[in-house]
């Protein structure tokens, strides 16, 4: 029961998502929502390396593009079955991510951010210019939709919606395992202070590369799903603007929290929908929003809630001690000790 209360936020969100097709009035809404789920998978990949491990990777959109093109090119030009190509989209992205990671992660902070910005741009240029492989600016047309698995087919908008939702839930489940484990704690320690983490015997390079590769894997499968869902891909998907979008999602929801990027993606997507009249100018709103968030609300929605929660628990524990009750039971501590990090605060007082 306690478990249910603790996971209440998750459960409510899941129920809402499952019920959404029942209340939504048309296929367009389903389409927007499905697309948001795909972005949410990619954003939570970015969150792993940036929010949990502290490495601002500005090439993330490029890795999503690698996934998308892997699926698009393999299915359209080489006739590879969709689901195999889909798995490969994650694998290829992670494979390239490994090599980019071992070079870029030797760089610290600004250098890393700038370097990955450049990597993202190289990926964009390569996709645009390498016509023999990518069809250049004309893009890959006629990407097949996800074919049926056994008796389950994905033709209707609803079934596609549930497919994408399923993928998101699986991604989050894995992400949850990662960040609440010792591995996640290791990542958080690196974000907190690389110097301290290293002094605690943590192999910085190995862990950062692992986090990076995992994040590119998520980007890759999100890209693959994107290609199969939108059915067309052009170089545009590698544009750095998409990385910036994902950073916005992450910040709005709460950087360094599991649920943050999901909440952020859904919220910003629907906000954008209701700001349709702004179209390409939505950044007039989101640019300053990003700045304001970073200055005044750096933990985002979920992050702020988490901090409040942890503080409350700590206060209760302190009161319990003062009241003379025996020192907290182990389980008391464990409730606070979900490995899930809460924003980035450290170093502000350095």
């Amino acid at each position, binding site marked *: 029961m306690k478990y249910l209360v603790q996971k209440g936020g998750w459960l409510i969100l899941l129920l809402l998502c499952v019920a959404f097709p029942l209340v939504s009035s048309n296929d367009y809404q389903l389409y927007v929502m499905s697309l948001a789920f795909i972005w949410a998978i990619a954003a939570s990949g970015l969150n792993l390396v940036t929010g949990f491990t502290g490495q601002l990777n500005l090439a993330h959109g490029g890795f999503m593009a690698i996934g998308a093109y892997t699926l698009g090119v393999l299915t359209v030009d080489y006739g590879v079955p969709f689901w195999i190509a889909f798995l490969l989209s994650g694998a290829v992205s992670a494979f390239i991510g490994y090599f980019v990671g071992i070079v870029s992660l030797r760089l610290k902070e600004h250098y890393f951010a700038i370097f990955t910005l450049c990597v993202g741009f190289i990926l964009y240029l390569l996709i645009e210019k390498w016509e023999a492989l990518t069809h250049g600016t004309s893009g890959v047309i006629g990407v097949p939709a996800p074919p049926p698995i056994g008796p389950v087919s994905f033709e209707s908008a609803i079934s596609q919606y549930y497919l994408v939702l399923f993928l998101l839930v699986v991604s989050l489940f894995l992400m949850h395992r990662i960040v609440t484990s*010792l591995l996640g704690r290791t990542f958080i320690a690196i974000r907190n202070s690389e110097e301290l983490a*290293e002094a*605690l*015997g943590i192999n910085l390079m190995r862990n950062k590369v692992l986090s990076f590769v995992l994040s590119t894997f998520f980007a890759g499968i999100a890209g693959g799903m994107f290609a199969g869902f939108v059915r067309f891909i052009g170089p545009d998907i590698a544009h750095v603007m998409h990385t910036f979008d994902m950073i916005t999602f992450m910040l709005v929801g709460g950087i360094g929290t599991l649920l943050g990027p999901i909440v952020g993606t859904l919220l910003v997507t629907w906000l954008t929908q209701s700001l349709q009249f702004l179209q390409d100018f939505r950044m007039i709103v989101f640019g300053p929003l990003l700045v304001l968030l970073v200055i005044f609300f750096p933990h985002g929605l979920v992050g702020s809630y988490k901090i409040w929660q942890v503080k409350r628990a700590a206060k209760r524990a302190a009161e319990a001690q003062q009241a003379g009750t025996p020192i*907290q039971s182990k389980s008391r501590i464990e409730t606070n000790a979900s490995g899930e990090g809460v924003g980035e*605060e450290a170093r502000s007082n350095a």
Partner: protein
Amino acid sequence: MLNVKGLTKRFGGLAAVNNVDADFEKGKITAIIGPNGAGKTTFFNLVAGTHKPTSGKILFQGKEINAMRADLVARLGIARTFQTTHLFENASVFDNIIVGHRLRTHSGFWDVMVNSRRLRNEEQICRKRAMEVLDFVGLADLAPRITADISQEARKRVAFALAMATDPEMVLLDEPAGGVNPDETVGLSELIKKMVVHGYTVGLIEHKMDMIMGIADKIIVLDHGEKIAEGSPAEVRSNPLVIEAYLGSEHAAA
């Protein structure tokens, strides 16, 4: 336990540590003192692998560790604290400590994916170890508190606990009593002595002379990167070179 020979580190033209010999004996407290900028922290950085020495030799338990990466040095059994402690402010104290024992665990990515028994065991071990070290430094009560809310002295103790969670042979403490009031300093001295009683070897940088004189078995004095004196507290106190180094410096010892 730790033997250093001719250790030198240059930053550009500046020799932050210059040809220093030093021996840290097992089960003893060896202190390093010296004016600001004398090269004390740099010395620790060299031993702990944070910086690469320009030249010189560092032997830990007879094994050469010069230029070894910091995480490997930690695995070998040298833990350290920093002059300023970067803790994860929005997490509980307990949460901050758990990762300290990570280097003694083996679970990797696939253990995480399948949530293996080994992973679950090791997580338990890390938690248990965290509770033990918090208990050792006298912070068991603060375990569930938010790190941002605890006092400066408690932060120092958390840093000790983190270092101890790595199961070290030797602990290097960089100004553990910096920014801590005199009463609390006495408490920290007690804690350091307790660590020695429990078999840890301690290297200690401190500006607070009463503390050093009270607990150090041996004192090494650095000035401008060079070792200018070495000996028991009494010897060092009466050494004219040391007195001059401190009087000649505008930042006389606090």
